[in-house]
């Protein structure tokens, strides 16, 4: 179908553009690393850049920008649980963030204990 072919040709352009942008952002990520920001700021910046890259891959390469409701819905649900899995366990040890456990650090050379 002609319109189909046209649509694909347009997409090819966007794939190339996104590919180039991804490479640019990779460079930005590495460059940002050299600024030696404080850890919280570094984490935030890195995650923002990675999220931008990830969104581009998902919406353009994976065609998510024009996908169907069932896919969106399942992914949205997944993202919610992903965030829960990442952050809720942290909150159960939140009282101890940043505090060293104080346990002795044992130096060793060998590998597996069993």
């Amino acid at each position, binding site marked *: 179908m002609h319109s189909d072919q046209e649509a694909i040709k347009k997409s090819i352009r966007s794939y190339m553009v996104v590919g180039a942008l991804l490479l640019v952002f990779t460079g930005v990520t590495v460059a940002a690393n050299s600024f030696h920001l404080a850890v919280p700021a570094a984490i935030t910046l890195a995650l923002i850049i990675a999220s931008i890259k990830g969104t581009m891959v998902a919406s353009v390469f994976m065609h998510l920008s024009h996908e169907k409701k069932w896919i969106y819905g399942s992914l949205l649900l997944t993202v919610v649980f992903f965030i829960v*899995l990442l952050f*809720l366990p942290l909150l159960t*040890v*939140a009282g101890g963030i940043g505090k060293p456990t104080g346990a*002795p*650090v044992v130096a*060793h050379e060998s590998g597996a204990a*069993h």
Partner: protein
Amino acid sequence: MDKVETGTAHGHEHAHGHAHHEELGFWRKYVFSVDHKVIGIQYAVTGLLFLLFGFCLMMLMRFQLAYPGSPIPLIGGLFGPDKAPGGIMLPEFYNQLGAMHGTIMVFLGVVPLAVGGFGNFVMPLQIGAPDMAFPKLNMMSYWVYFCGGVVMLVSFFLPGGAANSGWTSYPPLSVIATIGQTAWLTGMVFLITSSLLGSVNFIVTIVQLRAKGLSYMRLPFFVWAQFVTSFLLLLAFPPLEAAGVLQLMDRLAGTSFFMPSGLVVSGRPLTVAGGGNPLLWQHLFWFLAHPEVYVLILPAMGIVSEVIANNTRKPLWGYRALVYSIIFLGFMSFIVWAHHMFMTGMGTNISAFFQVTTMIISIPSVVILTALLLSLWGASIRFTTPMLFALAFLPMFGIGGLTGLPLGLAPSDIHLHDTYYVIGHFHYVVAPGTIFALFAGVYYWFPKATGRKMNDTLGKIHFWGSFICINLVFMPMFIQGLGGMNRRMYDGGMQYAHNAGLLKWNVVIGFAAWGLGLFQLPFIVNFFSSIKWGAVVDRNPWEATTLEWSAPSPPGHGNFLTEPVVYRGPYEYSVPGAASDFTPQFEPKGA
């Protein structure tokens, strides 16, 4: 009564649009079949056998608890000196039995039967599909489960025996445990993979292969239950798979994911890097294991709903409430898991969060139970064997659910945590809860799978004996738990003075467990003999309304000859003005 033309006897292929038909060899037809009905029966029979095996493990444990230190009668000598020298059970063996009883019952018994068995066999028929969306994947799912099961069984024969750190496998204990634990982890990887493949199949089948006219709100509640269950399996299992890999690495590659610094074992410091966190395992484990318990109960609720609707000759009360509740329940099940971890030292705020979500999750459960109870109001109840089990499910699940409440609140959990109260609670929901519902399902759908009915007299003996004995097994556990008797003690708690008055219940429970076992014999005999000699029935012996009853008993390859069409909701019983007391979904309007 039914207007849909369907295929004839089993093995004949008359599916429309198919140009040729080839007779499959024995192996492709019965062993490596891609037909959802064969696979469903494979899952069901394997699951039932594992339930029986897990039951036997429990019988050994209950003997030890009733008569600690006594030689096991008759078979005591079979276990060998590393498990039971002189027939007397070693604590190590008791721990193996405990860990494997839980693992086998949950992962090899109930879920394969409830989801793999009933889900596979019934769901495609109920939605009017010719098979699952991915039949080959379905076949692989079963065999991967089978391999996992073999690994679990073989682990008993490894040096040091099977896994013995509880079904929960908490590190650091599980990391330093004997090699059986490695087998457990390997087996779990197989089982989780099987579940994941299966859940993708179920979801795609329900979304994509529903018959014409079968909108989501006309689905039998059983299908909704399987649908939500599949999402739970899909999204909750992967963290446990990851955790299993991490524990395998701790055991085999010397990593310290779960091994804290400064750990000393038998007087010697462990030579691991340390820096790990045992709580990490607990989080990843319970992130699955809480939704897992809903995987255990949801299909049961689905089965009970079908049986109740059919045997009350009325529509289910509150279909929409049931559907929204089960969806909400599925969602909430992902954010309550740390109520299994109240005693791990978390702060009061996060503890409050989990207590609140746990209390909230009881609401949809109560809605579902209430809707099912209200469905009985004004009904013409037929006390068939499946209905007896379905009716018993209601108060039994009620007891199980209510006894969960003090466990879900941290202050009361302080006293009840890790006691027999917990064991009583969860067994009530799974044993007289889910397993009774599964029995109801077996009696209910046996005619569809075989073309014959199971014997009613044997069924009633099975029911009444099981119902009385199972309550005698689990009710005393609440008394023991409230009295402070800890779980997982190989001598039944003898060493603790506060248990002295509670020990007698172990003897009662022991006898009741024996009774329960004996009353399964009528079921086993009934099941196998009815395959050959049961009363022959036609395609709809229960006079039911859902789509599976329009296919022949048993359905042929492809299930339906002409494309099934659905004209109405799933529970149109006793419609005013109708010729009979049931109007099937598939009966054309004005017929």
